[in-house]
């Protein structure tokens, strides 16, 4: 492991195969409890442990490769692949509201790419002041922004579809009074965006008080001073909140129109989901 720890006291202790074997002990305890008490969780737990192992080994190797080369095309390439995976995951969850997985994924990948890249450039270049392509900053920050923006887009899409379906009567009452689709959908767009922001806002309310956030914990383990780790946590929280807002807003605005015809009618077929 390269020792990139200029400001730290000492590098973090490296984990190897021996450590992984020791981790099998608590995992085995979980499985034993499940067997002993007939909880029926053996299969799920085993699959989860194996998937986590395989995925983390793979991602560790891939990101390690990118860190080693540390060139703009490897960084952009990795972020691009991450965006596609995020958009595909989101698309499979909300495809029904977009008339299809392909369409949903395409639109969402554009939203995620736009929102995340702007925010990442701002955080990296303007706020932190990274003055070259540096995987160590861009990959972790980009990954966190991307993951959260994806969740926000999914929550917003899911919510706006279900709100409009549930409140079709209210929407038509608005339309019947001469409201445009935008006016008729506005209360429900608001609720969708609020729902998309809730997880991040809740996390911000309790951050540091009830639980220590992942990035801060990781930085402290890596040897950063706690105050610096806290400042980086603030930076990423503001970044995530911004990405969430932009992704949820863009998704809602692109999506709500699909539930109306150009003659200001509610398109009931599209609401069946």
């Amino acid at each position, binding site marked *: 492991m390269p020792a990139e720890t200029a400001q730290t006291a000492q590098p973090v202790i490296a984990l190897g195969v021996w450590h992984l074997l020791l981790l099998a002990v608590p995992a085995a305890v979980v499985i034993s409890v499940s067997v002993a008490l007939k909880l029926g969780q053996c299969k799920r737990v085993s699959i989860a442990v194996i998937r986590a192992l395989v995925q983390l080994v793979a991602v560790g190797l891939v990101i390690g490769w990118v860190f080693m080369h540390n060139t703009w095309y490897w960084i952009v390439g990795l972020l691009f692949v991450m965006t596609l995976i995020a958009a595909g995951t989101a698309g499979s969850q909300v495809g029904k509201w977009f008339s299809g997985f392909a369409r949903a994924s395409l639109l969402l990948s554009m939203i995620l790419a736009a929102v995340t890249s702007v925010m990442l450039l701002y955080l990296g270049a303007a706020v932190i002041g990274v003055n070259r392509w540096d995987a160590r900053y861009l990959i972790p920050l980009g990954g966190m922004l991307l993951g959260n923006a994806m969740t926000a887009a999914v929550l917003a899409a899911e919510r706006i579809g279900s709100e409009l379906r549930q409140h079709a*009567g*209210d929407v*038509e*009452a*608005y*339309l*019947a*009074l*001469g*409201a*445009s689709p935008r*006016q008729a959908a506005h*209360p429900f767009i608001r609720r969708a965006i609020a729902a998309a922001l809730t997880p991040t806002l809740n996390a911000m309310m309790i951050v540091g008080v009830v639980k220590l956030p992942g990035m801060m914990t990781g930085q402290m383990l890596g040897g950063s001073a706690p105050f610096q780790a806290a400042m980086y946590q603030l930076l990423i929280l503001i970044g995530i909140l911004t990405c969430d807002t932009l992704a949820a807003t863009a998704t809602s605005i692109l999506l709500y129109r699909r539930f109306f*015809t150009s*003659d*200001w*009618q*509610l398109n009931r077929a599209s609401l069946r989901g």
Partner: protein
Amino acid sequence: MSPDAPAIVMSNVHRRIGDAAILIDISLSVATGETLHIVGPSGSGKSSLLRLLNRLDEVSRPASGDGPASGDTSGDTSGGGGITILDRLIADWPIRELRRSVSMVLQEPSLLGLTVRENLMLPFTLVNEKPADIDPRVTRALQRVGLDPAMADRVADQLSVGQKQRVTLARALMVEPRILLLDEPTASVDVRTAGQLLQQIQRLAAESHLTVVMVTHRLEEARKMGGRLAVLIAGRLEAIGPVEQVFADPPNETVRAFLHGEHHAR
């Protein structure tokens, strides 16, 4: 337009949803200032007909043997039928203007979590209008439908069903529409309240020379109010004419069975 031109003309109108025929070849006209009651068994297409008249739904092409089965052809008389509202093809109306001229009260009162006053002002706030005389207007609108003007600042969702229905009616009348569409306005209120509500509708219609098209499931109401009666059965217009005439002399057995069978059932 000439003063005695019909307010509504439907000619050979079809409405389909997917493969299901909801309305089949409907032709009728409603004179200005007239009240037309639409009755029929549930699922016969009464609400669907109403929804076409302010274009909440679109007219469909008839399912002909050779031509394309569906598609929106509102006002396009070449393929299917058309609807003319106040001498103008429905598709030629700017949609907002149409919906402010042809006001609709849906079956479920939908008061959107706003106060009574906000509800009444909604037709104006939606177009960023702010009439100078808001308070007198709200007071007058509430009095017209028999509500206490002191109610204006209550949250409308907390009112009784009958009161909500009146607020919805008052809201529909705020923009002085020419045509009023009512979808079972008395469905969720008791008979006494229903009677009062209908009297008010009748009076309002007479005062402002309003054309009223009203879906109802209480046949006695239609008889009491008078006007004309249209009987829809399984998507077809089976009878239309002055209320008492249709009752006295139904054109066929289906209509007779509905009008008189329904009578016993209630």
